């Protein structure tokens, strides 16, 4: 692991909020729309700095998205941010028709995403939105792994043309990339070299992927390649195909349902190019529940231990080629 060291913890939403201010400084056509939770998603930083370019739309995600479209069609770079459960569901039709079909320069910041929003419970734990966002033509989908990457990704989507979605979270997560860590939209980064198995992760699952790789090395001498797949659309087929060919098996890890998200995008690339066994670490087709973030990550098998176990399983399949049917959701449901 070159250049990858834990530097404490920080939220990805902080990166988003700060990047918006930077974007606002650089580009006077950046405008931001609030959906009544501007402190939580940290668009409040932008509001404070550029009150004349910030607009509070209230609790009206449909309207905020379509107003942003009107602004974009007037030459603005228009950001709307709210909780991802609402900023990418309540407005799904608006995203499809007004934003994507117009190929409008609208950016959605999906905050408080995933199971780690914690005690708010299932309604607020957005674990499904990547599935349809990546099905929308013209849409770019980014899931950054830490504070620094969230900042870079926000700036990158602000400076590209077209619709984009960035996903970030509520709770503090390990900060381990630096200003020097390479980041290019659409380019998956190899964070750790290895050729026994590839672990392809995004968002807050990248750090546990690195931890799992270290444990695999320490305990079993297994060299896992760890790929930070921050851009889910467009997917980096080259890097993933190379990983499939060179490692011969893949584990994906994401804070999202196993149906339709990163794992699904990687599976599409793999069967199309270099079919190898895969295992999926993610939410197993169920709703979340209230609890503390760490507790939920553990209960729903979204931690390094789950990744570790999946790598062993997938390596065994690579070696033995067993072909019985095992459903994606085979991990037993938790007991209350």
């Amino acid at each position, binding site marked *: 692991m070159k250049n990858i060291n834990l530097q404490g913890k920080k939220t990805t939403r902080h990166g988003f909020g700060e990047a918006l201010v930077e974007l606002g400084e650089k580009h006077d056509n950046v405008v931001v729309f*609030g959906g*009544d*939770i*501007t*402190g*939580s998603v940290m668009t409040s930083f932008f509001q404070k700095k550029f009150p004349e370019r910030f607009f*509070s*739309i*209230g*609790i*009206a995600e*449909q*309207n905020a998205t379509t107003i942003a479209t009107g602004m974009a069609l007037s030459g603005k770079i228009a950001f709307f941010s709210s909780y991802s*459960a*609402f900023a990418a*569901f*309540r407005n799904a039709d608006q995203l499809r028709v007004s934003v994507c079909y117009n190929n409008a320069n609208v950016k959605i910041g999906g905050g408080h995403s995933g199971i780690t929003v*914690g*005690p*708010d*419970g*299932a*309604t*607020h734990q957005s674990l499904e939105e990547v599935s349809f966002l990546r099905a929308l033509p013209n849409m770019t989908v980014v899931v950054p792994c830490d504070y620094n990457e969230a900042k870079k990704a926000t700036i990158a989507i602000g400076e590209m043309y077209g619709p984009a979605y960035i996903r970030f979270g509520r709770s503090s997560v390990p900060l381990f990339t630096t200003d020097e860590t390479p980041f290019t939209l659409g380019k998956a980064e190899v964070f750790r070299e290895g050729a026994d198995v590839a672990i392809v992760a995004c968002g807050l699952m990248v750090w546990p992927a690195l931890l799992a790789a270290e444990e695999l090395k320490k305990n079993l001498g297994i060299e896992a390649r760890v790929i930070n797949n921050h851009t889910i659309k467009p997917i980096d087929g080259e890097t993933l195909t190379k990983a499939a060919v060179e490692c011969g098996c893949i584990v994906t890890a994401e804070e999202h349902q196993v149906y339709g998200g990163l794992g699904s995008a990687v599976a599409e690339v793999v069967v199309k190019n270099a079919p190898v066994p895969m295992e999926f670490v993610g939410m197993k087709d169920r*709703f979340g*529940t*209230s*609890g*503390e973030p760490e*507790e*939920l990550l553990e*209960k729903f098998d979204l931690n390094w231990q789950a990744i570790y176990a999946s790598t062993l399983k997938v390596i065994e399949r690579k070696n033995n080629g067993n072909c019985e049917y095992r459903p994606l959701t085979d991990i037993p449901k938790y007991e*209350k």
Partner: protein
Amino acid sequence: MFNEIDCNMNSNLQFSKVQFPNEKRVATGYAPIALEIRRDIVKMLTLAKSGHTGGPMGLADFMAVLYFGKFMKYSANEPQMPDRDRFVLSGGHLVPVLYSCLARAGFFEPDELSTLRKFGSRLQGHPGLDTELPGLETSSGSLGQGISIAVGMAMADKLVDHNDRKVFCLTGDGELEEGAVWEAAMAAANFKLDNLCWIVDNNDCQIDGRVRDVMSIYPLAEKFEAFGCNVIEIDGHNFEQIVNALDKFEQNNKNKSGKPTVIILKTFMGQGVSFMQDKYSWHGIPPTEEQAEMALQELK
């Protein structure tokens, strides 16, 4: 079971055992019940260490009348009683006040209130029907959906099953910024749902500030009237006005007025605790232990 949940109970934050089953309703008067509800809310939120304090506090008076007056038919012994009236909480974040009512009405033991928002609890941060919590009629948490569920229930009762059940539904005022809410209003009036009582918690607060500043919904009564509803505006902290408003709804319902009733409750967020009162900053935070102590001092 909930008693396996680690609740970190501080002795000050223990819940009283008092319940107000059917026969005790009204008899005690509403004030002591509302007080107990407010004490519950403070304790629950403090123990949960996250969640929404302000809105629920402002609703204690109304909910005391709704759950412990003569207006809503239900049975804690038979939560699924076929001819019960139903309460739908559209603003799911307000759920602590509902959990307190359900516990105090005897649907479950008040001790369980200590599990709010904890892993494995039936008292989810936003209500979840998957917990099978007795007395809960629907999940909610995404604003502006519960009211349409209530419309659907009222249609089932009035237009399909032709029974006398009533549906009560509570939305916030910030929630009225959601367009879906106006679809519900339009349908409620067109289907002449005089069995629907829609309560708006008009505390003029939402997360980012005053509703009138974030995205004003005013004039409010005019909007509902133009959408074909019967509007009653009252002080949400005045028991007499609350009782009268609910009486009027009963009249509208009995007389088959053909119009849904909307009760606009003028409330204060955080009502009952001086340092919370009318402060939108209390929308989505819990009290610290010290704040809880101060609050409970006031709530006596």
